[in-house]
């Protein structure tokens, strides 16, 4: 080819179409993966009244802010280990972070939800001990024995730094689970309360009330008479304290009473109960509209660019008519010319497709970096889907189809007419 620019352009265009489609496929696949993994068999989440979706996103996916807090007194019935319907109830206290990674006040039962296991060190026991998820430890370069102070809220900001004695002590790091657990800093519920007791002039989101059975002095920062060795801590002993939510797993999912529990809670208590699968499906259907539109656009782009391959091949024939006729003169035969053009179509589509797939993976990797920074979720650009093989095959077919008419024209080259000019 002596004039490759046209053909190159149509190839790039085709590649972009394929790249866009594949990017969407990759994104969709990984999003679904992340969401499904983090459903963790949780049947109901109980928290403060507000948007149920927000509550799910916050307490299970650790995106978005809490809807508020609930009192231990209200939550207590659900925390009863002898509750007939509930197999597991994990209390969560949220609201603080360290360098944008969220600190969760909870107990060890959270590990069973996500399949967490201790990797190095030990699980948190004493107040102000923390165990880190693997990603937190890796990203922040923290090790057992390090100390840090927490920040209020979920953003890094110096003026929101809590100062509580020596701060938190890292005593262990979990093995990676591939779930949201990797991104969390786990400690005891009471540590979260204690940290906030020292706060004066809090922001509006922070609605702790005064604790009248709290036996620490409030007004003296220097006065450290906390008893940090309360391993006999029992959450329900503090009815006036607050937690953010409870993650609940039923003994029997199909039990009628289990199924109607969320409604009962919503109607009869001051709290809210939401079902993760229902809310997430609602989220999918909201996002779904956007994804569908994007996918349709991508398909149109792919079609248009396939058409552009056709046009490029077709117009290139005009420039090449002498060459084609010449090849006939030299002995090529009509069939050879036909195959030549078809082959060109295949090559254009195939190379374009590979280019597009490469672009989509690079794009995914770029998105992954961004997502990690904003949402602390780990996506990757280097996961390949089975569908990509299908796309390669479809591209080859498209190349053949786009080349058919030009190939036919080449086949029908009239030597006499062409060369008599």
């Amino acid at each position, binding site marked *: 080819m002596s004039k490759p620019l046209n053909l190159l352009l149509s190839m790039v265009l085709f590649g972009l179409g394929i790249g866009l489609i594949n990017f969407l496929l990759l994104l969709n696949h990984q999003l679904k993966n992340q969401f499904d993994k983090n459903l963790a068999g949780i049947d109901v989440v109980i928290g403060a009244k507000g948007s149920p979706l927000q509550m799910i996103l916050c307490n299970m996916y650790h995106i978005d802010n809490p809807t508020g807090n609930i009192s231990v007194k209200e939550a207590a019935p659900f925390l009863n280990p002898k509750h007939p319907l509930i197999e597991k109830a994990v209390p969560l206290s949220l609201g603080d972070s360290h360098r944008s990674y969220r600190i969760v006040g909870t107990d060890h039962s959270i590990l069973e939800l996500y399949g967490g296991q201790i990797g190095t060190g030990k699980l948190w026991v004493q107040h102000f001990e923390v165990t880190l998820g693997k990603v937190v430890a890796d990203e922040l370069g923290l090790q057992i024995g390090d100390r840090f102070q927490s920040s209020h809220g979920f953003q890094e900001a110096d003026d929101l730094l809590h100062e509580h004695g020596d701060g938190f002590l890292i005593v262990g790091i979990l093995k990676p689970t591939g779930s949201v657990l990797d991104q969390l800093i786990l400690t005891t519920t009471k540590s979260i309360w204690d940290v906030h007791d020292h706060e004066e002039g809090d922001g509006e989101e922070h609605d702790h009330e005064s604790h009248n059975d709290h036996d620490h002095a409030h007004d003296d920062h220097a006065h450290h008479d906390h008893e940090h060795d309360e391993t006999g801590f029992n959450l329900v002993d503090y009815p006036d304290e607050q937690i953010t939510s409870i993650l609940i797993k039923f003994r029997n999912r199909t039990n009628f009473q289990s199924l109607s529990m969320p409604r009962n809670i919503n109607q009869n208590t001051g709290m809210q109960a939401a079902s993760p699968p229902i809310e997430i499906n609602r989220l999918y259907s909201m996002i779904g509209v956007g994804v569908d539109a994007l996918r349709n656009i991508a398909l149109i782009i792919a079609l248009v660019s396939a058409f552009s391959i056709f046009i490029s091949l077709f117009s290139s024939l005009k420039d090449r008519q002498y060459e084609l006729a010449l090849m006939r003169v030299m002995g*090529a035969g009509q069939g050879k010319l036909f195959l030549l053009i078809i082959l060109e179509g295949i090559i254009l589509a195939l190379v374009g497709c590979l280019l597009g797939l490469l672009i989509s993976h690079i794009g995914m990797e770029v998105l992954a970096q961004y997502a990690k920074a904003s949402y602390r979720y780990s996506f990757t650009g280097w996961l390949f889907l089975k569908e990509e093989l299908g796309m390669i095959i479809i591209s080859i077919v498209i190349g053949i189809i786009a080349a058919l008419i030009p190939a036919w024209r080449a086949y029908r080259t009239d030597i006499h007419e062409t*060369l008599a000019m």
Partner: protein
Amino acid sequence: MLQTENLSYSYDNSEWIKFPDIHFAADTSHLILGQSGTGKTTFLHLIGGLLESKKGKVIVNGTDITSLKGQTLDKFRGDNIGIIFQQAHFINAISVEENLILAQRLAGKPVKQEDIRNILSILNIEHKANANPKQLSQGEKQRVVIARALINKPAVILADEPTSALDDHNCAEVVKLLEQTAKEVKATLVIVTHDNRLMDYFPNQIRLS
């Protein structure tokens, strides 16, 4: 060896051009003369199998090419008939040498580098073997075209107005080349032209009217 019998052609099935029967032996050269519009190119294309004959026969080295079709005809032509067109055409994306290799391949012959080098040196363009045809001068292009027509040692060499655009000096040069190379392979050389200068070089002449 080249022969035609009762060859005639019509573009619209109403006006027919009749061509004289020819009978040319190997290792001979001939001119086919005539003014523009007398059908010289049509005659050449019929002889070369580039145009499908409607009436009459064309026999090259004993084979009636008017009975051949498609791939068979193309291959026969590539192997037995070398054609030099009025305009120099090449596959522009590849080098001179590769153009010649292509000519060998498409005719179904093995690629022989020595033959290529040989013919390029006879034509004094060996040094341009790796050049792109677009970069050649007019004279060099013409020589490459001649080289390509002759690379497969054809039985018949057809040339369509090879000298019409050349000055007297270059005209003589090209004539010399054509004669020389035709003799090398003992081909029948047929030149179709309206250039009267060639009448001095080639005694065997046929005039179309």
